[in-house]
């Protein structure tokens, strides 16, 4: 029996930051797009490669700000959470804040590798709130939907502070569900869609672009460099530039706060130059 390579990744850097000590999983996909190229005279299909492209997805933890022991950011480090100004931090079970980034292809005839350009960004939030018997909690979201007089109160600012990093996004409450389950708590599930202002920062916060997360949220159209080496010896190394297609921050009671990234390569992925 041969010993096989395990988690001995020796290099994993994105946008100048090393994720070696923080990533939980990663997947680099190198793929050719193909076009069906068999003649009508044949029943067999023929895949003709026409372009090359690559995607990189990974999930990371975060170290708490200033921690000398590399303590990880957990949901307990969320110090504020509000939708439309209502504090829901004591009543929320779980939630996922996602960013999605649309791309259009920027490669010409001469290019083998895809050159996707980010052309739009959108945010959404999915969450489940409990309902305290004294009222409030998830009921506040139902009240927004029940208001017979106006649509305007469905506009709601999403605001969350985690480990001192404030995230603030103007959004629209587009769905509220009351879930009633046998022998379970009543839950209000909600879905919020992004509502970009006509001018100014979007998201409202953060505005800095120091970390990979901030770069993805604020300036997703700027490609980030990445380097990956699967193992120091007998491994493979890769480098290139990437732009995000999605990011998801997962918050769940009693768990680490995870960030899931999906990127697509801009241009060639190549072995790291020695």
């Amino acid at each position, binding site marked *: 029996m041969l010993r096989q390579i395990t988690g001995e990744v*020796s*290099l994993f*850097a*994105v946008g*100048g*930051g*090393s*994720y070696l*000590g*923080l990533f939980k999983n990663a997947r680099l996909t190198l793929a050719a797009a193909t076009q069906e190229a068999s003649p009508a005279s044949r029943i067999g299909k023929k895949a003709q490669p026409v372009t090359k492209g690559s995607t990189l997805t990974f999930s*990371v933890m*975060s*170290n*708490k*700000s*200033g*921690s000398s022991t*590399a303590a990880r*950011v957990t949901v307990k*480090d969320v110090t504020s959470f509000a939708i439309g100004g209502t504090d829901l931090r004591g009543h929320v079970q779980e939630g996922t804040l996602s960013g999605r980034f649309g791309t259009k292809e920027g490669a010409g005839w001469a290019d083998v590798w895809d050159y996707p350009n980010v052309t739009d960004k959108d945010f959404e939030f999915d969450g489940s709130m409990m309902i305290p018997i004294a009222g409030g909690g998830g009921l506040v979201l139902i009240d927004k939907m029940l208001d017979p007089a106006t649509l305007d109160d469905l506009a709601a600012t999403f605001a969350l502070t*985690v*480990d*001192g*990093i404030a995230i603030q996004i103007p959004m629209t409450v587009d769905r509220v569900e009351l879930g009633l389950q046998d022998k379970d708590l009543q839950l209000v599930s909600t879905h919020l869609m992004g509502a970009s202002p006509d001018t100014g920062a979007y998201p409202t916060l953060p505005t*800095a672009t*120091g*970390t*990979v*997360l*901030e770069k993805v949220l604020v300036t997703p159209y700027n490609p980030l460099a990445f*380097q990956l*080496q699967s193992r*120091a*010896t*007998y*491994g*493979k*190394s890769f480098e290139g530039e990437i732009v995000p297609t999605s990011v998801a921050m997962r918050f769940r009671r009693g768990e680490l*706060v995870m*960030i899931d990234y999906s990127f697509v390569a801009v241009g060639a992925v190549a*072995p*790291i130059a*020695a």
Partner: protein
Amino acid sequence: MSEDIKDRGKKTKAVTRQSGFGAAPIVDKAVKPQADKKAPEPEKEDTKNEQA
């Protein structure tokens, strides 16, 4: 007082956070990995078997 003296001590460089939510330690220098090593060539016996 010149602008330089007045602003001394006030200027702070934009520092990329190395810890905190969404941050990752900075890669100090361009990392040069070892050259990718190829797996050993298969033994010649294998070739013989294929030809047989």
